């Protein structure tokens, strides 16, 4: 089973903390600044950054299912 990353965009405040934590996995949309997932099923080596993003997200809208 591969890991799955999601952002609940309805509650995202566009703080960009996920981009700082895992720039290979997350970006912000040019249209509205909200977080977007670039790699929905990241390989194992990117997971520490994703876990950091989950922890740091001030709106707590980043989730990782492992």
């Amino acid at each position, binding site marked *: 089973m591969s890991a799955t990353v999601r952002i609940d965009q309805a509650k995202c*405040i*566009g*703080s*960009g*903390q996920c*981009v*700082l934590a895992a720039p290979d996995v997350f*970006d*912000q949309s*040019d*249209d*509205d*600044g*909200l977080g977007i997932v670039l790699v929905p099923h990241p390989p194992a080596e990117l997971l520490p950054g994703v876990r*950091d993003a989950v*922890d*740091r997200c*001030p*709106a*707590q809208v980043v989730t990782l299912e492992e």
Partner: protein
Amino acid sequence: MTEAAVCPVHHERDHPLLNGPTGFAEAVSDGPVKMVWPNGVEAWVVASYAGVRQVLSDPRFTTRKGGQPEMRTDDGEPVLDADQPGNINAIDGPEHMRLRRPLARGFMVKRMNQLRPRIQQIVDEHLDVMEAKGGPVDLVTSLCLPLPSLVIAELLGVPPEHQELFQATARDMFGKNGSKDEYIAHATKLSEVLAPIVAQKRVSGSTDDLIGLMANDTDFSMEELIFLCIGMLAAGHETTSNFLGLFTLHLFERPDQLEVLRRDPSRADVVVEELLRYTVGHLGGPGLTRRATEDVEVDGVLIKAGDWVSVSLLANLDEELCPRAGELDLEREAVSHLGFGFGPHQCLGANLARAELQIGLRTLFERFPNLRPAVPVTEMSYRTDMITYGAAEIPVVW
């Protein structure tokens, strides 16, 4: 667990950098306690890492103060009306999101990265002037204050000729002792300067800067827009400026840690995170306030609906966050500190502040490897009369 202690929020510090208000850390060390604010209001103080994160992110705690605004003069007179349109810190939920989300685009990580060369240029120019002048100079007026002030004005799209007015107004608006009339007079003066700028952006249709973005790409009312501008100008002037100064002072006091930055300036990003964690943590004291809308348990204490809660960023020194949390360790990897707050109201300008602090600090010590204080750090004057804390002057030589 529930005894009322006198809140030492306005009291002296034993050390200007390393201690919060005297007696505060001891008072809150066993979990939430109730304290009495100088204006007579009782509030729970939460200072644990988990507790602060919970209070700032749980929607059962509201930022709406039920008609009791946070900013007050010494007489207890409210400075800001809680229902002031555009007061982004006094609203919750969908109303807050309506104002907050369009602004996020203006502070995106990639936009802040694009801004880095310009920040570097501003830092370089100011350090050129400082070098030409020769020491001793005041680092606050030479770099700490003009840097964030120029950058936020550019981001907003405000012409540089208004700089002086903005600096003076921000200083006065963040003072603890101003009256409501003075505050309104400052806000009115700023509105008069901002209104024609907004009108001009509406004509041009540009969304390249924050005022253009708000004027042309949101449903903000004029009153909301002007108040948001004033808030961002004021926040952009004061906070980063103080922290750049405080970081420098901490490094003066810890040559071993300064050596870590000097050895590898490319780690300025991680170094700034640790300095934020440590500096904010040691400032301690009660901070942001919330009010419970339902009964909520925090750190084993039942906070009842209607109770006031104040969070302390002393939480940044909680061992739950990292080992040896009370120590500055610039070799530490970045941790999820609370220096910019947490929850939906987390500092909007966090990524801007990071860029300014990283470039400012790194360049300062690269340009002046022998930079040192001209008087002992403990003998400098600190801004105890302001809502934001920092050094009033930092005389340096090199």
